């Protein structure tokens, strides 16, 4: 499969568009159908296409198991960090109105919800790619 030039060329063309669509789904979640879970899973699907076209070892050279786990931790930290930011601004956990009142910027709810969705998207993408690395690879580790 590695020698098939058609599969490699088409997937090299398709992967950036899939990833841009995933980012659009995450960002557009506040005003239409979509959100963090869906966008993260679509982003993980682009990784699956890369694994099919270029082989597991080449994709793992770009980002290994350790890096993907750190990405997942970063995603959860973004989400929980916004929650603790609300605690710092004398509100309840994840109370967006407290942050809005403390910073004095109106209509901050939408931006904060977009940030939360981005955190969900990163965490879901990283967890799904990690699961696929582990189940589809034959038990070896890259690093």
């Amino acid at each position, binding site marked *: 499969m590695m020698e098939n030039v058609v599969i490699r060329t088409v997937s090299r063309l398709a992967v950036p568009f899939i990833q841009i669509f995933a980012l659009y789904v995450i960002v557009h979640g506040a*005003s*239409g*159908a979509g*959100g963090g*879970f869906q966008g993260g899973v679509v982003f993980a699907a682009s990784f699956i296409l890369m694994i099919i076209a270029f082989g597991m070892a080449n994709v793992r050279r770009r980002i290994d198991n350790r890096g993907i786990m750190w990405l997942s931790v970063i995603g959860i930290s973004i989400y929980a960090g916004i929650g603790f930011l609300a605690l710092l601004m004398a509100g309840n956990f994840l109370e967006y109105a407290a942050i809005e009142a403390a910073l004095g910027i109106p209509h901050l709810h939408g931006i904060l919800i977009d940030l939360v969705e981005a955190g969900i998207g990163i965490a*879901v993408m990283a*967890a799904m790619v990690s*699961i696929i690395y*582990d*189940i589809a690879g034959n038990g070896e580790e890259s690093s």
Partner: protein
Amino acid sequence: MIESFYELFLSRYNYWMAIILMLIGLYALIAKQNLVKKIIGLNIFQTAIFLFYISFAEVRGGTAPIYTAEGVHALYVNPLPHVLILTAIVVGVSVTAVALSLIVRIYEEYGVLDEDELMLAVRKR
């Protein structure tokens, strides 16, 4: 009698189909020997419950829960079951992933995929 049955069917067929799907999944979960078949049954069981939830969120003549130009005065379907099911689907795929990795691990260790043979192999060891 026949007319009342027809009335009952036309107004509640969605719940009936959800229950039939749930029974198919439950049967696969109990009676099938192969472990991957059991996971497929678990998936069917899950989606049947999701279908039941989404069915009672439906409102006749309502639109999707995204605000239109009329704001809060338009008729929308109930958004709360959608939220619950949205989280439940993603939890379901993580359950499937853990179950499949357990199956792969069992196959590496014992070389069997059937339930009875697995019990025999465990007892022999």
